[in-house]
């Protein structure tokens, strides 16, 4: 079957109207218009199942975890650890203890940079990233390199917004200790060939960290198939609560890494002379976490699996094709990011109209998009624009949403030119 045919087959039976009923916020209005939410790459809306799961924790099973001998604490611990197992399965991890629950991908990158990075990167060593990265996959490495006297290398991207693989390979050197790159670009939607990049990095002896924040809601992830060493995603982008997320790391690496934050839950014993660390993953989880949020993240992953990532991806791919055509038909619109492999991201500029003005006009039509640099200023610089307007798709979007977007962009064009 061709990819197109298999995509079409996967969309058969995908009932977008039923999916829409799962998201209470889609019944709200903005400036008197029905909400058209095209900003899921910034943060996804929540289905009823996630809202109910979080509420249920507080109503029937909330207490601190990993501590109490009482029934509620055990219920909460059990539910939290089930969510961890859920995240492990979602990523194709071998064991739950390879999953560190964190506030999100940003915290995960910082953990790897601070714990793995500080023990493995020294003066004269190199860290390799790409020109596609979100600030959260740039700055933690800059901090590390500055502290260690190491050099940050950046593999460039081409005019379509794809990483130049030949340059990536060239930039890997015997001094490269770790490379960190996005699975999917937040600003452009480019899907990176992560398996190939991982092979190249491992051949050069570098560890591999993947920022999966934009991949988790759209692609099936299998960390063992990719072969990477660390992989992180954020709960709030995959229809779960904000300030939840997971880092997967190979057990043998996590075992060797020092803790990066000290506190309760991360120790096995404490005296004033010396403390010993808890086992993984708890060694990396100091303090009381977002308990109800973590449990609800499990519900979000269940929800995504229930719809089926293949079906979601096929649905979004059809919408992306439609939206690309509709925007391209508007004279003066230039799409930024035209990679062959893309998730549902439409980043664009319109001649003579600033993205913020497009965003405000669309807002008055009830349409939410993101405008600005998307926390990826180097990507904007690469394309010579200060900012773009970005419409991003989710499982509940429809062709009508994209028609509304096109109408709104035309309206902005009429108003400002």
């Amino acid at each position, binding site marked *: 079957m061709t990819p197109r045919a298999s995509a079409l087959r996967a969309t058969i039976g995908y009932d977008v109207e039923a999916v829409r009923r799962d998201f209470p916020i889609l019944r709200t209005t903005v*400036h008197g218009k029905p909400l058209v939410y095209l900003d899921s790459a910034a943060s996804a809306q929540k289905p009823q199942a996630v809202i109910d799961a979080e509420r249920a924790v507080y109503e029937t099973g909330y207490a601190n975890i990993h501590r109490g001998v009482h029934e509620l604490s055990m219920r909460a611990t059990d539910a939290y650890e089930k969510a961890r197992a859920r995240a492990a399965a979602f990523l194709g991890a071998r064991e739950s203890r390879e999953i560190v629950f964190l506030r999100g991908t940003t915290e995960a990158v910082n953990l790897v940079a601070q714990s793995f990075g500080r023990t493995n990167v020294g003066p004269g060593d190199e860290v390799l990233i790409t020109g596609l990265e979100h600030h959260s996959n740039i700055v933690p490495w800059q901090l590390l390199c500055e502290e260690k006297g190491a050099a940050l290398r950046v593999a460039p991207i081409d005019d379509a917004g794809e990483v130049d693989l030949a340059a990536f390979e060239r930039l890997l050197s015997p001094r490269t200790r770790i490379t960190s790159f996005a699975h999917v670009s937040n600003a452009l939607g480019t899907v990176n060939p992560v398996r190939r990049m991982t092979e190249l990095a491992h051949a050069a002896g570098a560890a591999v960290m993947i920022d999966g924040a934009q991949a988790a809601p759209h692609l099936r992830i299998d960390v063992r198939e990719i072969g990477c060493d660390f992989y992180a995603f954020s709960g709030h982008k995959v229809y779960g609560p904000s300030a939840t997320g997971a880092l997967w790391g190979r057990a043998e690496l996590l075992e060797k890494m020092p803790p990066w934050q000290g506190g309760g839950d991360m120790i096995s014993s404490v005296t004033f002379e010396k403390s010993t660390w808890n086992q993984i993953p708890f060694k990396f989880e100091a303090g009381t976490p977002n308990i109800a949020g973590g449990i609800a993240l499990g519900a979000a992953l269940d929800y995504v699996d229930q719809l089926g990532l293949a079906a979601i991806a096929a649905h979004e791919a059809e919408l992306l094709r439609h939206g690309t055509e509709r925007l391209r038909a508007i004279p003066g619109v230039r799409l930024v990011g035209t990679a062959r492999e893309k998730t549902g991201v439409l980043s664009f500029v319109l001649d003579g*109209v*600033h*993205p*913020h*003005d497009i965003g*405000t*006009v669309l807002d*008055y039509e009830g349409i939410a998009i993101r*405008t*600005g*640099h998307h926390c990826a*200023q180097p990507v*904007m610089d690469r394309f010579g624009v*200060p*900012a773009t307007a970005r419409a991003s798709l989710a499982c509940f979007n429809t062709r009508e949403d994209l028609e509304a977007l096109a109408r709104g962009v035309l309206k902005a064009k009429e*108003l*400002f*030119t």
Partner: protein
Amino acid sequence: MDELRELYQEVILDHSKRPRNFREMPEASHRAEGYNPLCGDRATVYLRLEGDVIRDVSFKGAGCSISTASASMMTEALRGKTLGDVRTLFDRFHHLVTSDPSRAAQNAAPELGKLAAFSGVSEFPIRVKCASLAWHTMKAALDGEAKTTTE
């Protein structure tokens, strides 16, 4: 569309499409570059003072319609004004775009003149920085700072 027109009044659209005093000024006695990192807007403001009177004022840069129109209308408002007038106008304008939107009409001090068109901005907290970029940059130029940001 009506609410949208409150923000994008005709005079604002006019100045954003055809900005006035949009030029460099080699003979400027004061200049500064302003940057709004949130949206990437940049503005350079040039001033030529004689004594404490602004004889000429211009700007260059790229930004959204609000920031372009605000810079353009600011240059028109400042020509011929004394430094004392400028300080008053700065404060009045700042008050106009940052105070309670429901009192926007009362907040438009008479000396603002056409600048009162920016009253709609206070409804959009995220756009306040767009409207004030040129003003902050102008103030930085007069204070002898070469660069400023809206942060």
